[in-house]
Structures are given as structure tokens and as C-alpha cells.
């Protein structure tokens, strides 16, 4: 930008310099016309100045023309308008100039020619002829006089020459008279001015005398007057030498006649000089005029460029600004050149761009706010444990949060725009969900609420769903939003609480009467067994034995329920889990149940912080459960794996018990941790329920599943230490999500 401004200033300065130089040259020329003494000295300067000025102007114009041509070809905004304006200005300037030039040249030629009149010329010629005639008459008179004087002097003795010559001079009226002898030697002279020395004979006079011809001539004098000089050669007869002598006399021209002759001669000469310089004068004036015309033309064209540039510049700015606005740059502000219509247009343009910029800023701000709201909503939805699924009216997925995918067992976040039916193919949970949803939507129910039970490979999942319609047109809904929550864990907790209550009531209501029943049966046996006959005694013995036995069984059962319901305080200590596991496993190996128990543990694992009694019970329950499950199974094998693991930056202990038994029944995996659910004929159904309770008391996680190659697997994760336990407590909500993902 700065370079362009500098270049423009430079070109303007060059233009001004060019015009100044040429004007300066013209001024010098004009001064020289008035005072020509310095012309020789300054003519080179004038010439150089002219050439420099002309060349500068010419270069600028060529540069301007080239740029205009280039802009025109490149369709630069404003170039066509500029070309038209330049053409118009040049036309307006050139045509009058040429007309003025033509008529000026005509006027000069005719004006100068009018100075020279044929009659004047003839008059001058006649005057000159008359003057010559008058002079010729006088010359003839003086020639006659000198002839007579020569004849007289031809016989005058030398001794009287001076006297006779003076007398003859006075008689003839001559100013000066000189007699020359051989070799132009002055023999005698007489003059009316004393002290003047006679001049030697001029060459032409001598030549004419040698040819024996008289000489007569009108001699202009340096004083401005004239005289008639005559000379005559004669043979001197005053002695015997007969030498040739010449007498020369200067006759003055009458003053009045001399003035008239001078006037005629000067007028004639002046007129002749004018005639001689007439063509030169015309040429000179024509050249000067042409030069001025050329300067005017160059200046006019240069002025046309400057003017057109000034006029077009705001329009070019406007075009550039419009293009900038079209490209989205609303911050464009154009300088207001003046207060005319173009200035008003540019001012309006500036107002428009300012308003556009303000509107865009507000729109951007609104968009940013919407985006922020949307981001917040997305964050909320992402953090929400409730699944949210937004559908278009044609059941294409508009949006779904992470929880929705986790609950339904498929990633829905990247499936926006796809049909929910297509996405559901091959995904059992989602398939069931879509079936239920479609059932309602196809029936025209747009607002519905239902609890759905989905059955998957890892168990059943209970969802509460609520669907609502997104506002749209009057007739068509814009879409649907289905909000659903996995309440499986909630229901499980409710069940756990109910079973706990049942256990407490059993312990309280059933266990208390059992002891009197047992004591009463034993008392009856002791009191009446001896008194009865053998047959009745046998009956009583069997009956009381059965009562005591069943009461014992019931006591065991009630104790088990009591254990389940009981929640003593945790006794946290540091213990060696590896050692504990070996103890428990060795106990079961010692029972020789025919089941191979393989323990894989990490000896380097650090000590575990937890309730050692509860962990021992967990191991007992799991291994016993597995041993009982493997009864009747040939080559039964139990794998117990204990390892340290860092899961989500939390130090955990992972305990896994696998067997190659029949596994869990299909569909019952999710219920195996419920009390009184068992697949064994002898089980109380509290083993795994207690394990689950103990694990949860350690803020751990437990899961069960069937192995792909047969058998069951129960996996437990316990925090390694107190810090890990605290972290697990803090992450309880996320852990719930994680559980869903694992499910």
C-alpha cells in the first residue's frame, strides 16, 4: 500500500516536473525573444529543458496508457469507465485544440502575407529606381566635371598643381580632390577639412584606371550620409614623360537628397529583409504554435488521466469494497472522497457494511451461545446415566447419548442419520427396544411410557421408557425423544433389601419357636419313650427324631438367612491374599472331592487391605459353590486366579473362579446373585448372594457369566487398599455406567 502511494506521488511529481520544465523552457524562450544576448549561452539549456520536459510527459503518458490498456484487458474494475473518461476528456481537449491550431496557422500565414503588399513592393521598387536615376544624374554630372578637371590638369605644370587642384575642387564643389601619379603616388591633394590625409586609390579604382575607364560610384559613409566618388585617368602632357595620372574627387550628396535617398534605401532594405524572413517567420510561428499545441495536448492528456483517476478511484474503491463484502469481509470501510453523490453512495455503503458487520457479530454471538448450550446439553447428556434417543419422524437417529448406547449395547453416537431399524439389526437388546418403540409409534401413540424387559446374553435388563414428540408442523411431528433408564440395578437393590428384610424376619420369627419345638420334642421323647410299648416307642422315636432333625435343618437355614441379613462392622486389616487363598484351596484339596483345583496367584502382589474374614468367606463360598456344581462331572477342574490389576487408575485385586461344570442356566445369569436362587439340589440359594453382599461391602464388583467352552466363571474385583476403596466410592456413578457397558 505504501509502495503504491509512493509510486503515485513519484509519478505525479514527474508530471509536475515535466509540465514545469516545458513551461520553464517556454518562459526562457519568451525572455530570450525580449533579450537575445544570452541566447547562445542558454539555447542548449532551453533545448535540453524542452526535451526533458517533453520526454518526461511522454513517458508518463506512455506508462499511463500502458497501465490503462493492461487494466482494460485484465478487466480491472473501473478500467472501462476510466478508458471512456480518458477518451472523452482527450476528445474534448484535442478537437478544440486542433481547430484552434488550424485557424491560428491560417491566421498567421494570411496575417504575415498581408504585411507584404504588391503595391507597396512596386512603390518601393519605383522609389529605388527613381533614387537611382537621381543619383545617376548626379553621377553623370560629376563624371563630366571630373573629365573636364582631368583635361585641365593634363597641362598644369607640377609647380601649380596644388593651387590649381584646390581651385578646381572649389569650383566643382568636391569635398576632396587628389591627384595620383605612377604607382598611385599622391602628387597633390585638396580637401575642405584640414588635416585629412588622402587615402590610396582603391584596387577597383586602380583596375578601372588601368583599363582607361572613368570611375564613378556612390559611396555610403559611416556617418550615414553618402558621397559620389569619381576618378579619371589622363596622360599628363606638362612634361615629356607623358606619364599616366589619375584624379579622384569626392562629391558630397545634397543633404536633402541624401536624406531622401537614405530613407528610400532603408525602407527598401527593411522591406526586403522582411520579405526574406517572411517564410522563416511563418515557419517559426508555426513551430512555436505546434510546440505549444503539443505541450497543451500532452498536458491535456495527462490531466485527463489525473481527472479520470480521481473520478474513477472512488468507484474502484466501491467495487473492491463490494467484492470484499461479497466474500464476507464486512469490516471494509471506504474513505469518503467528497460530499457529492459518490460520497453519499460510499457513505451509504459504509453504513450498510457496518450494519452487516453488526448483524454478523450478533449472529455469531447467538450461534456461539447456541453452540455453548448445545455443548452443555451434550455434556449433560453424556454424563447422564439415563439414555436419551432422539429420532426423526421417519425413525432415523437424530441424536443419542453415550448412556443410550451403553444401555442398549451398541454405539449409537456415530449412527446419526441412519435408520434405527437398520442399526438394530444384529443387536438383540436394541432390536427388542425398537420393536417395543415401533409398536407404540406405529399404533399412533406418540406419548407413551412403559417398562421394558430386554433379554440378552448376559441376562435380562429392565428399562423404563418414556417417549414424547418433538414439536414440528401442524400435521407432522418433527421427531421423537425416547428417554429410558436401566433400572435393573435398582430392582436388584430393592430385591436385596426385601430379601434382607425377609431374612431378618425369618431369623426373628422362625428361629425363636424352633428351640421350644426341639426341647418339647426331646422332652416328649425322654418322658414318654420309656413308657410306651415298643411299637409306639418306635413311632415316637421316629417322630421326635424327625422333629429334632428338621428343626436342626430349619435352624441351619435360619442361621444362613441370619448371616445374609447380618451386617457386622468391617474389620479392615492388611493380609496376604495369596497365603489366604492357598489355605482355603488346600482345605478343599484335602477333602478329596475328586475335583482338581488349580490356584494361580502372584506371589509378588502386595498385601491387601480388607476384612480378611469376609474375603475368606468369599473364597469358601465360591470354591464350595464350584465344587458342588462339579458333582457328577468327570474330570472336574476349578481354576482360581488371583492377580493385581490397575483398572481406571485404581489398584485392584482380581479374583476369578472358573469351573468346567454345566454352567448357569440360560436366562438365569442375572438372577444368580438373588437369595434363594440355586441350580443345586442341596443349596440354600444364599451362597452367591452372600458373596455379592460381601464384595459390595468392600466396594468391589462381581460378575458372572458362562464360559464359551462350557462352565461358569465368576469374576470379582476388590480394591487393593483403602485409597483404592475411596476412589471406588468416589466413582460409584461411573462404575454403574461401566457395569452397563460390561453388560
Amino acid at each position, binding site marked *: 500500500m505504501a509502495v503504491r502511494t509512493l509510486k503515485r506521488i513519484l509519478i505525479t511529481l514527474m508530471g509536475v516536473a515535466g509540465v514545469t520544465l516545458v513551461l520553464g523552457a517556454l518562459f526562457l524562450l519568451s525572455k530570450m525573444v525580449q533579450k537575445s544576448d544570452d541566447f*547562445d549561452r542558454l539555447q542548449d539549456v532551453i533545448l535540453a529543458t524542452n526535451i526533458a520536459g517533453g520526454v518526461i510527459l511522454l513517458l508518463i503518458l506512455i506508462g499511463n496508457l500502458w497501465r490503462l490498456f493492461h487494466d482494460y484487458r485484465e478487466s480491472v474494475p473501473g478500467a472501462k469507465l476510466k478508458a471512456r473518461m480518458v477518451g472523452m476528456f482527450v476528445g474534448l481537449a484535442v478537437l478544440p485544440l486542433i481547430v484552434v491550431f488550424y485557424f491560428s496557422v491560417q491566421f498567421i500565414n494570411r496575417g504575415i502575407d498581408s504585411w507584404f503588399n504588391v503595391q507597396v513592393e512596386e512603390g518601393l521598387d519605383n522609389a529605388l529606381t527613381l533614387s537611382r536615376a537621381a543619383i545617376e544624374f548626379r553621377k553623370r554630372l560629376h563624371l563630366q566635371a571630373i573629365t573636364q578637371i582631368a583635361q585641365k590638369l593634363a597641362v598644369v605644370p607640377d609647380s601649380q598643381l596644388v593651387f590649381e587642384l584646390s581651385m578646381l575642387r572649389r569650383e566643382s564643389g568636391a569635398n576632396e580632390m587628389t591627384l595620383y601619379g605612377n604607382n598611385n603616388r599622391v602628387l597633390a591633394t585638396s580637401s575642405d577639412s584640414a588635416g585629412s590625409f588622402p587615402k590610396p586609390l582603391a584596387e577597383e579604382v586602380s583596375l578601372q584606371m588601368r583599363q582607361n575607364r572613368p570611375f564613378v560610384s*556612390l559611396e*555610403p559613409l559611416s556617418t550615414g550620409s553618402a558621397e559620389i566618388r569619381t576618378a579619371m585617368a589622363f596622360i599628363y602632357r606638362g612634361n615629356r614623360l607623358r606619364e599616366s595620372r589619375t584624379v579622384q574627387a569626392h562629391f558630397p550628396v545634397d543633404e536633402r537628397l541624401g536624406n531622401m535617398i537614405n530613407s528610400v534605401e532603408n525602407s527598401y532594405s527593411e522591406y526586403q*529583409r522582411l520579405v526574406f*524572413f517572411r517564410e522563416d517567420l511563418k515557419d517559426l510561428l508555426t513551430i512555436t504554435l505546434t510546440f505549444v499545441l503539443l505541450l497543451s495536448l500532452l498536458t491535456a492528456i495527462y490531466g485527463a488521466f489525473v481527472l479520470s483517476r480521481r473520478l474513477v478511484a472512488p468507484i474502484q474503491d466501491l467495487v473492491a469494497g463490494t467484492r470484499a463484502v461479497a466474500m464476507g469481509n464486512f469490516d471494509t470501510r471506504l474513505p469518503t472522497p467528497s460530499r457529492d453523490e459518490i460520497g453519499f453512495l460510499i457513505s451509504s455503503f459504509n453504513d450498510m457494511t457496518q450494519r452487516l458487520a453488526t448483524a454478523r457479530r450478533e449472529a455469531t454471538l447467538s450461534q456461539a451461545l447456541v453452540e455453548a448450550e448445545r455443548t452443555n446439553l451434550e455434556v449433560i447428556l453424556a454424563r447422564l446415566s439415563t439414555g436419551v434417543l432422539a429420532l426423526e419422524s421417519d425413525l432415523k437417529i437424530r441424536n443419542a447419548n453415550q448412556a443410550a448406547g451403553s444401555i442398549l449395547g451398541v454405539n449409537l453416537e456415530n449412527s446419526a442419520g441412519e435408520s434405527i431399524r437398520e442399526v438394530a439389526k444384529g443387536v438383540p437388546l436394541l432390536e427388542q427396544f425398537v420393536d417395543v418403540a415401533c409398536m407404540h409409534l406405529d399404533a399412533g401413540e406418540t406419548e407413551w411410557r412403559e417398562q421394558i424387559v430386554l433379554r440378552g446374553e448376559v441376562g435380562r435388563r429392565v428399562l423404563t421408557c418414556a417417549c414424547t414428540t418433538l414439536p414440528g408442523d401442524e400435521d407432522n411431528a418433527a421427531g421423537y425423544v425416547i428417554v429410558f433408564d436401566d433400572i435393573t440395578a435398582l430392582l436388584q437393590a430393592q430385591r436385596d433389601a426385601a430379601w434382607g428384610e425377609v431374612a431378618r424376619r425369618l431369623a426373628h420369627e422362625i428361629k425363636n419357636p424352633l428351640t421350644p419345638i426341639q426341647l418339647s420334642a426331646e422332652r416328649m421323647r425322654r418322658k414318654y419313650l420309656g413308657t410306651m410299648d415298643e411299637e409306639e416307642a418306635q413311632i415316637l422315636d421316629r417322630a421326635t427324631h424327625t422333629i429334632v432333625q428338621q428343626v436342626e435343618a430349619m435352624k441351619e437355614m435360619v442361621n444362613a438367612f441370619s448371616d445374609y441379613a447380618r451386617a457386622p462392622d468391617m474389620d479392615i486389616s492388611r493380609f496376604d491374599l495369596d497365603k489366604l487363598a492357598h489355605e482355603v484351596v488346600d482345605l478343599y484339596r484335602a477333602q478329596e472331592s475328586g475335583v482338581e483345583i488349580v490356584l494361580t496367584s502372584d506371589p509378588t502382589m502386595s498385601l491387601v487391605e480388607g476384612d480378611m474374614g469376609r474375603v475368606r468367606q468369599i473364597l469358601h463360598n465360591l470354591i464350595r459353590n464350584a465344587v458342588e456344581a462339579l458333582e457328577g462331572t468327570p474330570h472336574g477342574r476349578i481354576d482360581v486366579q488371583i492377580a493385581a490389576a490397575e483398572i481406571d487408575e485404581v489398584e485392584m485385586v482380581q479374583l476369578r473362579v472358573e469351573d468346567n461344570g454345566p454352567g448357569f442356566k440360560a436366562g438365569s445369569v442375572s438372577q444368580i446373585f438373588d437369595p434363594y436362587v440355586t441350580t443345586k439340589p442341596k443349596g440354600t440359594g444364599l451362597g452367591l448372594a452372600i458373596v455379592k453382599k460381601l464384595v459390595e461391602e468392600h466396594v468391589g464388583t462381581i460378575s458372572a457369566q458362562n464360559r464359551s467352552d462350557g462352565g461358569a466363571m465368576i469374576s470379582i474385583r476388590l480394591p487393593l487398599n483403602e485409597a483404592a476403596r475411596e476412589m471406588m466410592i468416589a466413582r460409584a456413578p461411573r462404575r454403574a455406567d461401566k457395569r452397563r457397558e460390561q453388560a
Partner: protein
Amino acid sequence: MSQSANIQRTKLSRRFSIALAAVLLFGTGLAQEKIEREGYFEVRSASTQATGGVHALDARLQLVLSSEALAALESGVTLTIEMQVQVIRVRRFLVDSVDAELAVRHELEYRPLSQRYIVKNLNSGDQDSFATLYSALNNLGRVQALPVIDDELLLPDREYRLRLRAMLNTQQYPAALRLLFFWRGQWQLQSEWFEWPLER
């Protein structure tokens, strides 16, 4: 009448051509118009003689006027013929210096009434008239015993050179005409410098 009009048109077109040529010359800064000159000035011989301690110049010049200068003379235009004499001191290590300069100007004029050519020495005011141009130019071209410089004014034991040239001086004409003469070679009559050592 038509012939007169034709002549006018011819003159006009000629004038335009001249103007165009002049503009081109102004614009392009070309060298001066090169026209074959009919006239020339030439110094044939020159020498000095010391007489009474004054170095006097004897020279012979050939002055031939160009046809345009001749026509101007016949039309009553006074021609000024200038002879420039310079006394140059020869210097060994520096540029030679012009210690003295003498310009002798003569006016040559034709008087239509007497039909004689007048030669006037502008320095002395002496005037001679001649019946022919030849005799007038011959007289002009013969310089005899023209005092140039007193030997007393020259540095002793120094070497001097003299040089002489003749030229047609146009200074007395109006500048506008001289500007025109500048482009016309026939008015550029000037001899080369004629140099010779000064004998002391």
C-alpha cells in the same frame, strides 16, 4: 486564382511538414538537421610578427557564404563576420590557459541603391565599399598587421600558442530567428581553429 490557391496549399503543407519535423526533432532530441552546406569559412594561413614589441597577425582566410546567407545579404540583411584570436599559454601539467582573447568583428552589408557591398570594422569603425561580393570577402579574408598582444603582457620563458577562427555571428538577429537558424546548417558557418606557435 486556382494556381495561387495551389501555391498556398503547397506552402501550407510544406509548413506543416516543417512543423512536424521540428516537433519530432524536439521530441527525440536528435542531432541537428544535416544539410549539405554550400558555404564555408577556412583559415588558409596565419602567422605573427613582432614589430616594436607588439605581435601583429597576418592571415589569409577564405570566406565563402552559403546560398542562404548570400540570399539574406542580397535582401539587405547585414552579416557579421567575426574573427577570434586567442593567445594560449602552454602548460606542462595543467590544461593550457587562454591568457588573451581578441575578437574582430566586421559587418558585411549590401546597399541596393549604390549596389555596393559595405564592409565595416566594428572595432575601429572603418568602412570600405566594394563593387563585388568577391572583392568584399577577399578584403575581409586578408588580415594584415593586426596587433594582437604586447609582448610585455606575456610571461617570459613561457611557451605560447595562438589560434584563429572565423565565424558568422548571428547574435544581432532576434532570438526567435536565431532559434530557427540553429536548426539550419547554412547559417552555421564557422571555420576550424587554426593554431600556430607564437614566435618571440
